[in-house]
């Protein structure tokens, strides 16, 4: 069992976005002979979940969430290094490829989604904006993605989400990779019409869908 005060402090450093202290906590814990995986599972993962929850309830600002995700990344890197060849803790939560579809240059919403995914401990490959369908599939295969998330802000670019579904179907990848679609004009009806596995009405909802697909509580 890890000391309760350490667990409390890990949550606090994430919520208060104190990166310096977070790194100190991890280094001290490892130096004192603790198992860093325990610190991750009992401290940082509940901490980042609490951070995401506070954001979802309107108690935290998006930049704080992004910085908390950045701290998680640093902490994870330090822990992975300490494990030296042991299990890679990042892989446990799933890999997601995210893109704004071809012809669409609006990606601020997608950036928010990416931040929230990172804050939730997923491995995220953000392909950026105006990304061609074949490039999305190529990247998803290269990183062995569990999920592809696409967004479109323009109604004129929404058909590219259907193109992706069609391409995944024709390449026999639908069973292997789940898809989630989002963006201001995108609706649940559109998602089901094109055959997407999920629809996310906002970033938080996207996380819920992804967790469902990956069987994460």
């Amino acid at each position, binding site marked *: 069992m890890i000391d309760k005060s350490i667990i409390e402090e890990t949550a606090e450093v994430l919520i208060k976005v104190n990166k310096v202290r977070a790194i100190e906590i991890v280094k001290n814990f490892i130096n004192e002979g603790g198992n860093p995986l325990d610190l991750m599972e009992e401290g940082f993962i509940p901490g980042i979940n609490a951070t995401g929850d506070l954001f979802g309830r309107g*108690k935290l600002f998006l930049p704080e969430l992004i910085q908390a995700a950045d701290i998680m990344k640093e902490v994870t890197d330090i822990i992975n290094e300490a494990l030296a060849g042991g299990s890679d803790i990042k892989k446990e939560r799933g890999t997601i490829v995210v893109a704004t579809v071809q012809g669409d240059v609006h990606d601020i*919403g997608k950036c928010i989604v990416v931040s929230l995914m990172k804050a939730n401990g997923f491995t995220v490959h953000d392909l950026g904006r105006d990304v061609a369908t074949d490039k999305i599939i190529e990247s998803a295969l290269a990183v062995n993605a569990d999920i592809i998330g696409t967004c479109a802000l323009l109604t*004129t670019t929404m058909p590219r989400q259907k193109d992706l579904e069609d391409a995944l179907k024709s390449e026999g990848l639908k069973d292997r990779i789940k898809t989630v679609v989002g963006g*201001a004009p995108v609706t649940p009806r559109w998602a089901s019409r094109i055959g997407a596995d999920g629809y996310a009405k906002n970033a938080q909802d996207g996380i819920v869908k992804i967790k469902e697909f990956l069987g994460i509580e």
Partner: protein
Amino acid sequence: MPGFRIEGISKDKLDDIHHATIEVLRNPGIKIESEEAAEIFHGAGSEIEKHNDGFIVKIPSSVVDDCVQLAPKRFVLYGRDPKYDHTVEPGSSCFTLFGENIYVNDPYTLEHRICTKNDLGVATRLADSLGEFAIIEKCLGSQDKPSETQSMHNYEAMVSNSGKHVLHGFFSGRNSEKIIEMAAACIGGMENFLKRPCVTTTVCPTSPLTLVKNCCDVIITCARSGVGICSITMPLSGTTAPATIAGTLIVQNAELLGSLVLTQLTAKNTPFIYGSVGTIMDLKLGSPAVAAPECGVLNVGTAKMAQYYGIPSWCGSGVSGSKLMDAQAAYEFSTNTAIALLAGSNVVYGCGSIESGLTFDFAKLVLDAEQLKQLQWLKNGMDVSEETMALETIQNVGPGGEYLTSTHTLQHMRSMSQSDLFDCMERDAWDKKTGGKDIVERAYEKARFHIENHQSMSLPEGAAETMKRIIKECEMADC
């Protein structure tokens, strides 16, 4: 009569914003995702360097100054019908509809649904019937039409239902050429169109500091064809622009000056409108706060920077975050529209829209128009002259008299503000006239009456067929 005005920002602070913008245009410069556009900048003395999928362009202040001088201070937005010609000049203002709605509240069933080309025609006819709108802007998209040619369908729906000048995003270089052909067919041929261009394109820089390929292509094609450019940027403070209004103003100013420079380098003296629909991002929700007070303050900055450069401005102000035409929608529209208008914005945008610009509502358009009448009156301010001071009348009426029957009242009563739907009747009269209905319900009734009874200017012979042929040819080519 000078009217009421918001000054808002002092000359030395506007100088600071301008000089900081010039710094930004030098370092880091702006990103241009079009080789042709980069060449145009380079040919006029801007430094260009290849950058990923585009070019970084560093524009010297002398080029900016020259291009600002080339942009006209005054020009006419021609209607198909000359009675609708609207002159944009310092002190003038007009109002337009919000441009990008993708849903509509059906005017008959009130069902919230995806909008169609037919809806755009109907909404345009309503706007054509309302005198508060001197020009027409696309208020919703033809969602039932293919994405590649949707802007052409949008134009067809609008021009078939209004004789007013049309402000509309052409989408791509190819579509710009085609829409210009369509517009020429609707105004008696290309020769006449070049004399009276009855359409202006909107283009959108992408914050921060980027002009994407379609944006550049539309600017270049339209400027070469004598079509004016309304450049509208949408920085979101805290995400695509700094969290402060002054910083956001600098980012948007760099984007707008970048598009202005490209416009004037392509074709000197092309009409250019300096526009912004910027606001803050709600950093707790992660969604744009379209009607936040910061939007109003930024609008003042937009209008003042445009006045600083001596070019017309366009301010996005009237959109509401509300999902209904309700008290929130009315408050939000009124506050920011009043501020944009009083700041001297030449085009005040955003009427008819709720749900942060996703849904068009017919009652909202009617009620916005009603409120615009009041706001325009407010802007006109107080005239103080021998006639309006009415000293002689006051002396003639004397203590305890009445002004109801004075000649002075007869002469001035028709210039007093009036309203149609807004009510100040005593209760019995109100009950009799309205049956106690809410104003939103009465606004829908008015909208339906105009939709069914308004006759907009018909198209010249053969124009409808020409437009259909042009669209069909493009759709065949796209297949």
